[in-house]
């Protein structure tokens, strides 16, 4: 296919440009004494013409070995992407596109030049996506075949191993249930973080509004205040549930041979299919609630051109029960050995160290009180201080409990299991030797005396790095891990 244009439906997402143009016009018109509406109309016309020109100038060609994109109205740009370089193709279909059989394609080729080189075909017929997938698959396999020719002995072993793997794990599927979505919403603290954010961004206007409603409706005594707070939390949870429902509607994860494919969403349907060797790391998250209910979330970390949450990290198993953990991990990520041969935990002493590293801030409070004197402000300062004290103490204990680093063996094909905690959430990264970009070993003179060390590794995530660190582990253990990486 040579120099094809996008589907005209690609104009649809540009509707947002029109209010922006109007807004801009009203902003500019006043100081230069022009009629806001007339200028607005001119701006809208310019925007529309620009959009049409951009549409006219954007073409894509699907060639034998590469996809070729030409774009740019004034500065022309030609982008070549060889199929072998493609990391993954992201399909997303807005529900209005569905009747026309049109979807948006985002092609990730993991360049490091930032998002301006991200390749997005904002509206194409679905068969284009199918063709691209086919070519991508073919070229990926071809790359493997070429390698095989070079090393005939290796090939046999690989083949055998692969055949076995395929027999065992050819196909696995996971479909989310409404109950799981509910669990996923209610066990995460995201709702409260979002609430805090909203209060923060609106400078408390939302809070004032809520309080005014409360005062009008209930008067002001303790019982009704508590009742009101609970009601607000329930409403927030419900809204969050509906939001998550839209996002994870009919979430399916399918593993087929060497490919992982997931699909989700109600209004915009997202579909990503990627080869399992493109996965940089598998991340298992479990917060305090999750620990109590014995459930966790599994994510994968990928290399992509964007740094947005969507393309660099994906939730693949939103809710996973502890007792199904081994089974599910074996079904979907069979290449990851779950058993660690060696494991080094955080030392007991680290509770104090984690605590110390955060809690020195509390010293400011007595100093302030000493200099300023005891005022009404000091009361609340002391309350905050006491709360922070216990919070950080708990956090330090949690961190010490969950921090550990393990190895699944001592060759280059083995995996490093890094587990750390932050704000009552445990994160466990499974990273292969080949996926670790660099490793740092840190220890100060004082730490060495106490036989302690840090290990910090870097993984590629999106177009930048994800740091995974374990602090205050056994010195010799850390040295062992470091030596494993240096082999």
């Amino acid at each position, binding site marked *: 296919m040579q120099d094809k244009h996008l589907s005209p439906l690609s104009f649809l997402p540009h509707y947002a440009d029109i209010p922006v143009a109007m807004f801009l016009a009203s902003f500019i018109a006043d100081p230069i004494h022009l009629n806001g509406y007339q200028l607005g109309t001119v701006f809208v016309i310019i925007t529309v013409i620009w959009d049409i020109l951009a549409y006219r100038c954007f073409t894509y060609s699907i060639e034998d070995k590469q996809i070729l994109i030409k774009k740019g109205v004034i500065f022309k740009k030609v982008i070549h992407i060889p199929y072998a370089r493609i990391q993954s193709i992201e399909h997303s279909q807005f529900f209005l596109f569905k009747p026309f059989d049109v979807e948006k394609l985002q092609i990730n080729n993991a360049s490091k030049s930032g998002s301006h080189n991200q390749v997005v075909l904002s509206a194409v017929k679905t068969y284009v996506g199918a063709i691209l997938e086919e070519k991508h698959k073919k070229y990926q396999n071809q790359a493997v075949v070429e390698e095989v020719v070079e090393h005939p002995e290796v090939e046999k072993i690989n083949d055998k191993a692969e055949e076995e793997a395929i027999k065992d794990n050819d196909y696995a599927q996971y479909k989310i249930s409404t109950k799981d979505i509910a669990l996923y919403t209610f066990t995460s603290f995201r709702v409260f973080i979002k609430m805090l954010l909203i209060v923060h961004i609106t400078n408390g206007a939302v809070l004032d509004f809520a309080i005014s409603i409360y005062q009008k409706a209930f008067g002001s005594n303790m019982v009704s205040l508590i009742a009101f707070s609970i009601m607000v939390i329930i409403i927030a949870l419900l809204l969050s549930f509906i939001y998550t429902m839209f996002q994870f509607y009919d979430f399916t994860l399918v593993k087929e041979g060497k490919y992982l494919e997931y699909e989700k969403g109600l209004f915009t349907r997202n579909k990503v299919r990627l080869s399992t060797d493109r996965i940089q790391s598998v991340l298992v998250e479990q917060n305090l609630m999750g620990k109590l209910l014995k459930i966790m979330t599994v994510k994968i970390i990928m290399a992509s051109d964007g740094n947005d949450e969507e393309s660099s990290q994906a939730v693949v198993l939103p809710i996973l029960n502890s007792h199904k953990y081994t089974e599910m991990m074996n079904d979907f990520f069979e290449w990851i050995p779950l058993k660690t041969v060696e494991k080094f935990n955080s030392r007991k002493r680290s509770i104090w160290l984690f605590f110390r590293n955060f809690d020195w801030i509390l010293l400011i409070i007595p100093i302030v009180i000493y200099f300023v004197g005891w005022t009404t402000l000091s009361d609340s300062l002391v309350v905050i201080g006491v709360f922070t004290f216990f919070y950080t103490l708990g956090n330090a204990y949690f961190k010490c409990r969950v921090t550990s680093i393990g190895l699944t063996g001592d060759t280059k094909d083995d995996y490093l299991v890094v587990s750390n905690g932050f704000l009552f959430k445990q994160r466990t990264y499974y990273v292969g030797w080949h996926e670790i970009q660099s*490793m740092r070993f*840190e220890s100060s003179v004082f730490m060495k005396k106490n036989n302690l060390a840090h290990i910090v590794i*870097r993984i*590629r995530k999106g177009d930048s790095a994800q740091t995974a660190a374990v602090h205050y582990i056994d010195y010799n253990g850390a040295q062992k891990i470091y030596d494993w990486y240096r082999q």
Partner: protein
Amino acid sequence: MKKLPESVKTVWLYSAIITIIVEIIIFTAATIGVKYLDWKYVSYIPPVLGTLLVLVALFDMISIPYRYAFHQYAIHEDRVEIKNGFIFREQATVPIARIQNVDIEQGPILRHKNLYKISIYTSADSHEIAAVTKEESENIKTQVMRLAMEARNAR
């Protein structure tokens, strides 16, 4: 493990002195400027902040022999290693196969001493060797890139 060339000490000394001079000029000007404004408390900010920054730069200057003594690097067949610090010890390892590109940079002070700064990029992060001589920089570049190509093709 290799050490940096001796002349890097002079480079660091120059850059510390320049930093201190620039900071003193800026913060003296700011202190005088703020005096003419009638803000309570604000007039304390520039001198205090300035003193702190100058102290930091002074500490940097004094610690040059220490930093020099413990900044080391090594380029092996399969990995690059960089070591830093004695009291707070840091060692980093980057496998050659992970290296994406090597940048060689030279600022005015480095140019004066005919030295080069080397940045080694993986697809996720970067690592620096603060200063090497010209031949050494060429060596590192060719060696690392050759090894990186070999390592990648072998995989």
